[in-house]
């Protein structure tokens, strides 16, 4: 392993190298002592089984073993291994009884910190950092806490974390080894011995795998187009690939480029960015949970999603790939590097991880050339427990660049921009070394494909509501689907005689009416605008008001293109079997089973195609009208007032065409509010427009709605009308 900090672990050059070597040996001694304690614990369990056979000798053996396992001058409190060991070790941990193995490992960690301090004089010279490290090493909890508080108070949490970063893992492990919390002991042991990924948070002991298990998903990738102004590098190189990662940003996307190498062969380079900021868990695997799972687990939604993006390229078996990743992206690509199935299908020739915790990833194909670039003040690469202070040769065959950067404030030093700047200006040798390894990928880019990644395959837009069989009529795809729109429906009390006349000409009736005199004191509504005495009515209520609905809709994303419309209609009873009271319950039924509905009177639409097709499709004649502003023949002005959440209102519409009644439906999905006391009023312009005349005749000019329904964001499904015999 090559380190750019001036020391070499193999030869032990320099004081830091010697100290690291000593720390590694001490860790090995600690492991040997632990094994001796485990053997003694097993012998103790074995001796207890001899009690019945030879009670006196068994008791003597047990006493000798117990003494060996609890002698503070020898192994310390060292019962370990097996069920008995686990319980008593935790008990010992709670009581603060340390084992000799733990004390030796603590010395090893202190040596690692000393080694880092030799390379980072600021650590040794900083009185607050020294105070903290000394207090942790001496297992003085209160003093450690005070030292940490003093550090944070003096320079803020971010700066304190940045200053501590080079020895962050060691300080946490030291604290965890010596504290009374038994839950973090395993993580501390793994960090101190370099035997594996820290399985838990070294402070609380919360299992990393438990947190990572929350990140579920099969992983999915969908091709997507670059954003406006987004341009990618056109010639392959390390800096070009990292620049692309910076361009993509943490937006839940990855880039795959085809590059023609100097040998004329086209290969592909996967470029994976880091964690997407925002929610802990979103629909992309590039979230905080994804960062955890990619680092802790061998396979994660992120790596599975990247694999699916690669599969989408349709590359032949054995196609050569280079994988480049930053932060979480580095962990994700390394999960692919250690995936035997992926490496059997493709030949992963190179993997470069920048600022990623990948120390415990194991490549499936030993031929894969791997480089890891980490800033010693970047905490993220140390999250697997091994940072710049590590004394273990975990990957002697990797190219590791672990460097120091004078402007080391975290999280800036973790950003792809900072790594790019360091590789461009400060690490020319490392850059040249990696570029030399990537020679086959240094050529013109022939194709760039962007993929949006998901935890799970995303449902099609509008699924299942808008995914229905379609057919074409009158130049329109039917049913008309709208995946983005808004609407307001206002209900007015209207002149009953005019309403009856209108219905008669359309072969429909009777109208639903309000204010039935014979009802007496039964259900009585006191909606504003009608004064007192408004009652739910029956078809036979002479003189009672009819109900007109005006539905203002803006379909900005529909299968018929963007358009606005206004539909005017009269509420009508079940054409076959009018019911006095049943109508109000019937109006609440799903549209497929509803009989009462709205008789279409007319309307406006900004779509000339819809205006032309409407008579045949739905049995009414809307007028083509721009409907771009609030000026027009019919405008609802004023506030809707407070609203209550209600189910979205589906519509059953009855039209009339050449002697036939056409029944159609508009199904609506979206969050709807009912406004029981709207302050708005209807303004009907005296323009002579047919719709304006109609509404004026119905007495609606200046009228206040009985109630309104508003749906600020809706999806709608509008069917063509079907002829229904009603006589």
């Amino acid at each position: 392993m090559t380190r750019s900090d001036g020391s070499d672990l193999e030869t032990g050059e320099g004081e830091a190298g010697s100290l690291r070597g000593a720390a590694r040996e001490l860790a090995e001694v600690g492991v040997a002592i632990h094994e001796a304690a485990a053997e003694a614990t097993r012998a103790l369990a074995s001796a207890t089984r001899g009690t019945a056979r030879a009670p006196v000798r068994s008791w003597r053996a047990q006493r000798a073993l117990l003494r060996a396992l609890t002698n503070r001058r020898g192994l310390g409190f060292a019962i370990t291994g097996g069920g008995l060991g686990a319980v008593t070790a935790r008990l010992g941990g709670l009581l603060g009884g340390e084992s000799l193995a733990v004390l030796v490992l603590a010395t090893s960690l202190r040596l690692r910190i000393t080694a880092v301090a030799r390379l980072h004089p600021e650590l040794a010279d900083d009185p607050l950092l020294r105070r903290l490290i000394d207090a942790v090493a001496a297992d003085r909890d209160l003093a450690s806490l005070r030292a940490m508080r003093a550090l944070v108070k003096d320079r803020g949490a971010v700066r304190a974390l940045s200053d501590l970063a080079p020895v962050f893992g060691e300080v946490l492990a030291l604290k965890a080894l010596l504290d009374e919390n038994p839950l973090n002991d395993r993580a501390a042991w793994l960090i101190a011995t370099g035997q594996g990924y820290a399985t838990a948070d070294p402070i609380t002991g919360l299992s990393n795998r438990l947190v990572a298990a929350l990140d579920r998903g099969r992983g999915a990738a969908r091709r997507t187009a670059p954003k406006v102004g987004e341009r990618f590098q056109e010639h392959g190189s390390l800096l070009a690939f990292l620049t692309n990662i910076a361009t993509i940003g943490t937006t839940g996307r990855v880039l795959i480029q085809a590059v023609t190498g100097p040998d004329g062969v086209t290969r592909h380079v996967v470029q994976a960015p880091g964690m997407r900021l925002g929610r802990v868990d979103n629909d992309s695997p590039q979230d905080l949970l994804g960062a955890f799972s990619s680092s802790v687990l061998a396979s994660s939604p992120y790596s599975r999603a990247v694999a699916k993006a690669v599969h989408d390229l349709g590359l032949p078996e054995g196609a050569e790939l280079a994988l480049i990743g930053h932060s979480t992206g580095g962990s994700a690509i390394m999960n692919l590097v250690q995936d035997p199935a992926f490496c059997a299908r493709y030949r992963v020739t190179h993997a470069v991880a920048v600022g990623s915790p990948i120390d415990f990833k194991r490549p499936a194909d030993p031929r894969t050339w791997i480089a890891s670039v980490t800033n010693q003040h970047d905490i993220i690469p140390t999250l697997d427990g091994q940072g710049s202070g590590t004394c273990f040769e975990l990957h002697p065959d990797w190219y590791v660049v672990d460097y120091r950067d004078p402007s080391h404030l975290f999280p800036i030093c973790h950003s792809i921009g900072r790594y790019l700047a360091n590789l461009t200006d400060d690490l020319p040798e490392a850059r040249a070394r990696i570029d030399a390894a990537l020679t086959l990928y240094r050529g013109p880019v022939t194709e760039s494909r962007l993929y949006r990644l998901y935890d799970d395959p995303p449902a099609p837009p509008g699924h299942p509501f808008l995914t229905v069989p379609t057919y074409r009529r009158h130049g329109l795809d039917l049913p008309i689907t709208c995946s983005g729109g808004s609407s307001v429906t206002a209900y007015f009390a209207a002149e009953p005689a005019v309403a009856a006349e209108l219905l008669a000409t359309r072969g429909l009736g009777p109208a639903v009416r309000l204010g039935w005199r014979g009802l007496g004191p039964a259900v009585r509504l006191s909606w504003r605008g009608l004064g007192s005495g408004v009652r739910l009515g029956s078809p036979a209520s002479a003189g009672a008001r009819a109900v007109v609905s005006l539905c203002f809709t803006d379909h900005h994303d529909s299968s018929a293109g963007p358009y606005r419309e206004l539909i005017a209609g009269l509420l009508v009873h079940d054409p076959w079997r009018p019911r006095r009271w049943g109508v109000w319950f019937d109006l609440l039924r799903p549209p497929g089973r509803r009989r009462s509905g709205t008789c279409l009177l007319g309307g406006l639409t900004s779509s000339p195609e819809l205006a032309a097709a409407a008579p045949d499709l739905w049995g009414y004649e809307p007028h083509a009208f721009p409907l771009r502003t609030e000026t027009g023949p019919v405008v609802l002005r004023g506030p809707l007032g407070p609203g209550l959440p209600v189910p979205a209102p589906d519509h059953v519409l009855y039209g009339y065409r050449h002697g036939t009644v056409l029944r159609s439906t508009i199904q609506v999905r979206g969050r709807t509010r009912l406004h029981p006391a709207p302050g708005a009023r209807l303004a009907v312009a005296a323009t002579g427009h047919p719709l304006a005349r109609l509404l004026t005749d119905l007495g609606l000019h200046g009228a206040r709605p009985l109630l309104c329904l508003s749906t600020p964001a809706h999806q709608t499904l509008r069917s063509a009308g079907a002829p229904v015999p009603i006589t």
Partner: protein
Amino acid sequence: MSSADRLEEQARALAACTARLRRILADLGEAAPPWLSASIDAHLTACAVAAHDLTRAAHHLRALDEPPLSGG
């Protein structure tokens, strides 16, 4: 291999640890931080005590493995 044998082997490993700890300190020479000498001394003393404890326990285990005499 009996429990007593395995324990004796571990006792020998602990004794080897004391030698190894001495060598670690000696190899570091002047590079060793001032606090290390005391720590290593404490560790190797503890290793020696632990090795003795395990040897003694192995002796008792061996006695336990022998055929029982009359009266246990």
